[in-house]
């Protein structure tokens, strides 16, 4: 009985000393590495094999993508500061940083969709070439992840505003942070492999 009560108090910690939620989420992130690995592989395999243009060097605006990449990097900083605030019980700071995460995610998406519109004007669509197909599927999947992350942050703000996430339950924000940082990591890889190494 006492053991069962202790287990409940322990928030589902396993014999590894790691909570089930956290262990499960890191496993999910590892599987996401493979998921994005397949999409990046597909892009790399088809790289330079498109028989019709436009080609990457003709359309990519590295400067604009650098700005959006930096915005996403700083959203990761805002995320970690939000977690820090939750752990210290600073509710207003936590909400402010999470709003910053959503805002920077929105700016990133806005800039990227603006780039999409330009590429479409140049004639690069989902069906125009193997480059177009693999590029839009890879970056589009990443953007879906960003949107899901923004929705998750909005839910966290709602929960924090209603005092549902006290410092003792900061793991909920930590897990959301793991997701957001992972999305950031994937973009770091995409930025280098697709935009910089052309």
């Amino acid at each position: 009985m006492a053991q069962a009560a202790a287990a409940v108090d322990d928030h589902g910690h396993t014999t590894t000393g790691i909570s089930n939620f956290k262990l499960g989420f890191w496993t999910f992130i590892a599987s996401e590495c493979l998921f994005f690995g397949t999409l990046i592989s597909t892009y790399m395999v088809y790289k330079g094999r498109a028989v019709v243009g436009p080609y990457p060097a003709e359309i990519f605006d590295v400067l604009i993508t650098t700005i959006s990449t930096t915005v996403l990097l700083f959203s990761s900083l805002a995320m970690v500061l939000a977690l820090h605030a939750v752990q210290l019980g600073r509710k207003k700071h936590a909400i402010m940083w999470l709003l910053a995460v959503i805002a920077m995610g929105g700016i990133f998406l806005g800039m990227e969709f603006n780039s999409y519109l330009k590429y479409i004007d140049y004639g690069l669509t989902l069906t125009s070439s193997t480059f177009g197909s693999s590029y839009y599927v890879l970056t589009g999947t990443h953007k879906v992840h960003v949107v899901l992350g923004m929705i998750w942050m909005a839910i966290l703000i709602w929960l924090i505003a209603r005092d549902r996430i006290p410092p003792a339950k900061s793991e909920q924000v930590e897990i959301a942070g793991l997701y957001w940082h992972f999305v950031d990591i994937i973009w770091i890889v995409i930025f280098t492999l697709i935009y910089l190494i052309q």
Partner: protein
Amino acid sequence: MSTDVQHASEASAPDHGHDDGHASASFYVWIGVILAVVTGVEVAIFYIEAMDPYEAPILVILSAAKVILVIMYFMHLKMEPKFLTWVFMAGVVLATFMVSALVVLYHVLPAFGG
């Protein structure tokens, strides 16, 4: 522990150390600044033509450094049990192997008549 002793132990702790094992806000800001600077260096390398022969390996190394910084400090993997590192690395190693194998298969081997 008296309040004075507690304050003394907090003061003697390194800047990145906190009593919950996580870093201070200023430490995270520094990591963010480093990430932005490395991104700037990457873009500079992209635009400097003299760097073209070494561009790809340098960019991959800098990108890997950024990923490691985010994982270690923003995702707190440095402070987590080693087991989580192994779980995460399993996915990273398999994904890296898959991307590398396909690039070799489709881009490197054909160049050597494979």
